[in-house]
């Protein structure tokens, strides 16, 4: 077993609802064209997608789990960034 490893690609698909591309999983393929083909076969067998992106896995830079608190906790106390922080009298109606 000394077969060369097949490159890994991350697959993102966009569904009909118009939401952004979302990570669906990964595939192994020799090049981008074959990765697209494999992604179509593996992740869109039931009309899940109107568009696919494939990205070489190595091209993704991810945040370190150890930095989670430093990166994401500060927003926890910033409740004034949410609409519910502000009071609007009922008589004014929906805003």
């Amino acid at each position: 077993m000394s077969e060369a490893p097949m490159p890994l690609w991350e697959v993102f698909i966009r569904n009909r609802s118009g939401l952004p591309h979302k990570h669906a999983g990964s595939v192994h393929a020799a090049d981008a064209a074959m990765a697209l083909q494999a992604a179509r076969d593996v992740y869109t067998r039931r009309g899940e997608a109107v568009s696919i992106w494939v990205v070489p896995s190595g091209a993704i830079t991810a945040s370190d789990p150890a930095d989670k608190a430093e990166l994401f906790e500060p927003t926890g106390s910033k409740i004034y960034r949410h609409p519910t922080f502000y009071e609007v009298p009922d008589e004014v109606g929906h805003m």
Partner: protein
Amino acid sequence: MYTQGLNVKDTGHPAAAEDPAKLARFQAKIDAEDKIEPNDWMPEAYRRTLVRQISQHAHSEIIGMQPEGNWLARAPSLRRKVALLAKVQDEAGHGLYLYAAAETLGLSREEMVAQLLAGKAKYSSIFNYPTLSWADIGAVGWLVDGAAIMNQIPLCRCSYGPYARAMIRICKEESFHQRQGYEIMLTLCRGSAAQKAMAQDALSRWWWPSLMMFGPSDKESLHSADTMKWKIKRFSNDDLRQKFIDATVPQGHYLGLTFPDPDLKRDEASGHWRFGEIDWSEFKRVLAGDGPCNRQRMAVRGQAHEDGVWVREAALAHARKRAERAAAAKIAAE
């Protein structure tokens, strides 16, 4: 189906030898129902258990294509053929989602495939039984996929994020598998006497092997405490088996079929169906490689892998050539 992977003795680095502070943080996260992600710290035993279970699960999906593929070209109608083809394609897809999930734990796809082909990695015992008649395709969908779903629904809440996400996708797709199987059984049971006999024969052969899919009885199981604590597994083998039996027996009676178990009877007090003793010697034999089709399944898988070598090599060579040409053209243009 796939919990069978947990029923071997773990001999690696024990969880008790891990850094207690890290272990406590890890457990707190699991207790809070947070997911463990690939780059998070995890005890070696957690990683090993998951690698074993997820890769076995993936191998099962891939080998599982064979018994059903056996009937693709002989399906009795176009409707049945497209459904079976879609199901077999799904099994391939499920295998690939699961391989991808296992790879996030640090094992390469090539290593996993090599372990399967070398006989070092197991797959579910159920796929070592032959599909002798068209009714077997009905029984496999109804019983084997039914048992698999029973096992897999709790796995959607598994503490390991990539595995849980793969399972959510798989469970969504698999309910069609069970329904198409039951529909085949129903059609046969409403058909001629010969067709109904064929359905009965399939149920008689597949019933006990389907119950074995849940793995050894809890009394024998070697792995439950840690895997429960780590929320890899949420229900015991016996609980899941009982749940499957309770759900399936009325479905079989609706078909007008008889289960091959004289001890099967409903316990009025608890509402559960009580069943006879499972032949664990058969289970052990099949798992150890001596079932009706073990050699054939491995030979077919090995041949398919071998036959694809030149395609994989050619695809890589083509990609390399195109990349080199693109690089040369860029230099020429500068």
